[in-house]
């Protein structure tokens, strides 16, 4: 009986062999994003951003490459925000679906895992994790399409220095996860360079919901700036609410995000003055067509920052494929590098990162400083890293 069961199991698996790959005129793009668990909203944003760009190019008749016109489609897999999930999803896209271009993942661990699968040269990966290890001189096909902490922290904290000349004592609250652990040293460094003193640096386990002990501690240490780093939107909202309830009067900053809508939702009136960065100003005139397309396709669901970021990344990729005249991974990577100055949703393309990572694969974009004013998120400044 054991034997028959084993044989049956093996046959069942064999029966799952993937269907034949699509016709030549079909270009499949891969998306890896968290679609279950905590990061789901960001994952859906990533997926939708790519889909909007794909709809747009298909509506225009498809992607012309050399003599051929491709119809573009997407395949999305859930990475559950984990390393193993990243490996499985990337293997599946590359080996199973024959995908050569991948958008996401957006957590540091799954990005590193997906890059390991794609090496050497099996796919271009346009990801958005915060870890500094995502960009290396060897990773010729890895690009980061969001600003990460090393890029925006100095500029954001510089802005804080300019606008708050007296503040000195900083307390950092960060999640004790992959992102928090990689980012905090960078933040501490940036605060020190700007002349602040980092008095407390607290790591919080996932699932914590009572932050009053931490905040009590911050108040007792006469902290003037509470920095929320990469705390999830929900946690950020709770910390803001509990801090204000305990009579904290200083600044609350989040060098990371985006979370402002959730913070207002959770903390209500107590969110006043919470300051964070936005990758994108959805109220600007350039954003209007994208917002309209989003509303048309997805209705009233909130549009988070990953939608414009990944929409923009997909459009950059299409341009590079067009210029390369092929879907060859190496050729497309080379053309992506040469897009410097090309107009995009975020202004003219700027690649950076040479000094920090040894490779110019970091997409540099201006970002916005947003603050809750009279209960509403308001963009108050624009900063260039």
């Amino acid at each position, binding site marked *: 009986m054991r034997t028959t069961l084993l044989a049956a*199991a093996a046959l069942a698996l064999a029966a799952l062999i993937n269907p034949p790959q699509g016709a030549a005129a079909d270009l499949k793009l891969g998306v890896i994003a968290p679609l279950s668990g905590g990061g789901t909203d960001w994952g859906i944003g990533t997926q939708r951003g790519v889909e909007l760009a794909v709809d747009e190019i298909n509506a225009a008749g498809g992607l012309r490459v050399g003599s051929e016109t491709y119809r573009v489609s997407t395949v999305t897999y859930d990475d559950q*925000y984990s*390393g193993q999930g990243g490996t499985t999803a990337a293997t*599946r896209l*590359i*080996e199973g679906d024959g995908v050569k271009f991948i958008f996401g993942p957006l957590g540091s*661990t799954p990005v*590193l895992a997906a890059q390991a699968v794609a090496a050497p040269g099996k796919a271009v990966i346009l990801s958005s994790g915060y870890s500094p290890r995502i960009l290396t001189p060897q990773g010729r096909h890895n690009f980061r399409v969001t600003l990460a902490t090393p890029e925006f922290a100095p500029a954001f904290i510089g802005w804080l220095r300019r606008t708050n000349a007296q503040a000195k004592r900083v307390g950092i609250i960060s999640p*004790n996860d992959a992102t928090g652990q990689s980012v905090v040293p960078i933040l501490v460094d940036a605060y020190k360079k700007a002349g602040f003193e980092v008095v407390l640096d607290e790591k919080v386990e996932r699932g914590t919901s009572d932050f009053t002990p931490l905040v009590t501690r911050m108040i007792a240490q006469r902290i003037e700036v509470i920095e929320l780093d990469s705390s999830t939107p929900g946690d950020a909202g709770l910390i803001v609410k509990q801090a204000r309830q305990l009579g904290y009067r200083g600044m609350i900053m989040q060098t990371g995000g985006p979370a402002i809508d959730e913070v207002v939702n959770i903390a209500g009136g107590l969110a006043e003055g919470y300051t964070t960065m936005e990758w994108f100003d959805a109220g600007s005139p350039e954003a209007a067509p994208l917002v309209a397309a989003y509303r048309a396709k997805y209705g009233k669901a909130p549009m988070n920052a990953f939608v414009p970021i990944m929409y923009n990344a997909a459009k950059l990729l299409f341009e590079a494929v067009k210029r390369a005249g092929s879907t060859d991974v190496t050729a497309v990577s080379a053309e992506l590098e040469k897009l410097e100055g090309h107009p995009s949703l975020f202004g003219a393309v700027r690649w950076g990162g040479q000094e920090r990572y040894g490779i110019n694969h970091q997409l540099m974009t201006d970002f916005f400083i947003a603050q809750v004013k009279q209960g509403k998120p308001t963009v108050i400044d624009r900063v260039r890293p």
Partner: protein
Amino acid sequence: MALLLDSDDAPSARWRPLARWAAWAAAAAALLAFPLAAGGFLTHTATLVLLTVIGAAGFHLILRVGLVSLGHAAFAGIGGYTSVILMMTFGLPWIVCFVAGGVSAAALALLVGPIVLRLKGVYFVLITFTFGEILRLIFNDWQSMTGGANGISHIPPPWPALMDTRAYYYLALFAAGAAILFCARLLASDFGRKMDAIRESESLAEANGIPVFAVKVIVFAIGCTLAGLQGSLQAHFIRLISPLAYSFQESLNFLVMNVVGGSNSLVGPIVGTVFLVALPEFLRGWVEYQFIIYGVILVVVMAALPGGLVELWQRACRWITSLSTRSGR
């Protein structure tokens, strides 16, 4: 093979030896030929299944003395981290690291086992849960050694040829086969009978001269060793190790595999693992309902099918036999 699985009560008497050998040969051939027929992704998945089976079999052994360890995944973590750190920091050859992965898990189990095994039932579940979480916190917070929450990436394969998924499949197949044969032999031996006696009644087993505590410690150590070996093989396959993969949810997965497959025989965890990995494939497009279905399956199995899918199969066989004898008349 027949010799390896020798046991007094094997229901195999019905089978003609030839047919039995043929079935074994067919199964072996199917498993060996699998990567040739299947694509890269399926081979990748099959490799993961084979590796998971090793840990699930370890969990099964512990379950067979009536204990549920929610720290099982953490022991896989011990094996994985030990192996990876020895290889990447100290440059030791893989086979040494692999053995060290198993030995470290065994050593920790022998250290902790005599303490935690003083507890039974629900209390054992709680203490292993707590112990597993402490290990996970250590993996997460000891950044200089374990790379913290980011873990360690770019782990080299055991040797360069195993960079290829198909090659790794055969390593996994060999390892899983060896582990399963070992467990099958163990359970069929006198030691296995002692384990079963303990699960049925500890005090009676003790009165019948079975050193209950010692048997439990040994079983716990063997089960954890298998977890450690799985952890090592898996880390070098995924080429990335991070604490998230060793949380108590992963231990729960081992439990679900055993319960769904069947907790009364070694076939259970094998079937359960295949089922749990294959299920999402059948539920594609239902991703958001997948876990709801898991939960319902768990309840249904516990309520109506305590022997798991294996029991379902046995019942089906019996039903077919009864049908054919009836129609034969």
